[in-house]
């Protein structure tokens, strides 16, 4: 019976060996080849000045793979500094970068929390819409509270629609008054009427079941 093979002595080398020290990594992040920038991006967040270097590198990085590594490192750092580096990108015209930033922000979890209320009040409709999705990852009651507040003031039906979609997952009975007020304000907007009705029905049903 063949197939016996001891551990390879010719094991291929890793694709991107890490830089030897912090100074080298920070230098390579800015000046290295694609592979070197990728490797540097994966390690510098744990080094002094690393998050700032990642934030700077992200703005000019054109290689998609390296950009992903930078986004992951910023997400894993999950500090106010890393969140602040990511936030401007949700306004980017580059759809890939915008989506990547959104995914990375979602992964920062608690670090994002202090910024969400202002994102939900942002002057840019698209930012408010994306912020609704980010709220999904908060503890249910906190997300519900923030989204109800938005529903009570929001003027754009598409943003309300995004909030209602998240409330369908995280909302409890406390969301029903805001949903009702929103439905009144946007009466005659068919998709929102429907969406609010489905969400409110689901919340009422769950509420009834939990009391039984």
């Amino acid at each position, binding site marked *: *019976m063949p197939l*016996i*093979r001891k551990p*390879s002595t010719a*094991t291929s*080398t890793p694709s991107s060996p890490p830089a030897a020290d912090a100074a080298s990594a920070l230098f390579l992040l800015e000046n290295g080849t694609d592979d070197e920038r990728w490797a540097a991006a994966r390690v510098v967040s744990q080094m002094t000045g690393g998050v700032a270097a990642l934030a700077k590198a992200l703005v000019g990085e054109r*290689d998609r*793979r390296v950009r992903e590594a930078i986004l992951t490192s910023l997400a894993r750092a999950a500090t106010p500094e890393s969140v602040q580096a990511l936030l401007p990108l949700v306004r980017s015209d580059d759809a890939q970068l915008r989506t990547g930033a959104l995914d990375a922000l979602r992964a920062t979890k608690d670090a994002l929390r202090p910024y969400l209320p202002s994102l939900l009040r942002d002057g840019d409709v698209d930012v408010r819409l994306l912020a609704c999705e980010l709220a999904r990852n908060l503890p249910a009651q906190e997300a519900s509270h923030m989204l109800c507040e938005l529903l009570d003031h929001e003027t754009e039906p598409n943003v309300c629609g995004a909030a209602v979609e998240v409330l369908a997952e995280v909302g409890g009975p406390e969301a029903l008054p805001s949903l009702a007020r929103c439905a009144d304000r946007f009466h005659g907007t068919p998709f929102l009427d429907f969406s609010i009705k489905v969400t409110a029905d689901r919340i009422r049903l769950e509420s009834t079941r939990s009391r039984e």
Partner: protein
Amino acid sequence: MVSEEEFQRLCEFLYRRTGMVFTEAKRYYVERRVVERMKATAAGSFVDYFARLRSDAGGEIEHFVNAFTVNETYFYREEHQLRCLTGDLLAERLRGKPPGEAIRIWSVPCSTGEEPYSIALWLLENWPLVDQYEIEILGSDIDTAVLERARAGVFGKRALLRLPPHVVAKYFAAAGPDAWKILDDLRESVQFSRVNIVECAQTRQYGRFDVIFCRNVLIYFDDASRRVAAENLYENLSPGGYICLGHTESMSRITPLFDVRRFADAIVYQRPAGGVGG
């Protein structure tokens, strides 16, 4: 037994050490393991046990991690991916591979060894070219207790249920009332090692593989750890290499680094041979 605050602290600790995330919904599951470990260490209270855990007295962190990992598996699980391996993946990998270069396959996490041994069995039984190539199969797991069992190569009837009887007869020997031991030749064909796939310093040392089986583990990680693990696995794949996930998992939801490849038997993910696609 464990207060809300204690549960949070415990979960944070588990996250920091392993990248695994347990929410309130998993509280019962977590508490059961804590009770097990409290009994095993004769800890009088959760506070006592947590102090022991944080100080890693008696290697408790490793015992703790072992208690939390899910180790139930069986031979030829998700057989369609094995069919895909011999039906499509290996042929693609062999194109352009320098003569004499080994085919490297990584099963991570490998639990008690059913998956890497299944790969070896499947190749022997279903790949006509098996004798023509050097094939290296590595099984890795974070849990040292399951690795010991994997190395021993002894399995119960339940683990063997999906194997055709002639395969069991050919590659196993009875080792007790409900125990079959895999033949030594085959056992020696698979190497085992401990690795935490969230730690790139650990994963890097294994070099590049042609195919990685990484099934049903990423689901336990939170978003950030999942991304890190995916990037580590990307580094461990040769350009053009493949990664097979569990049937409920999707690499596309984690990272855009991989291309999706649809074959007759399975959907797998591929490290692009060149740069990352647009």
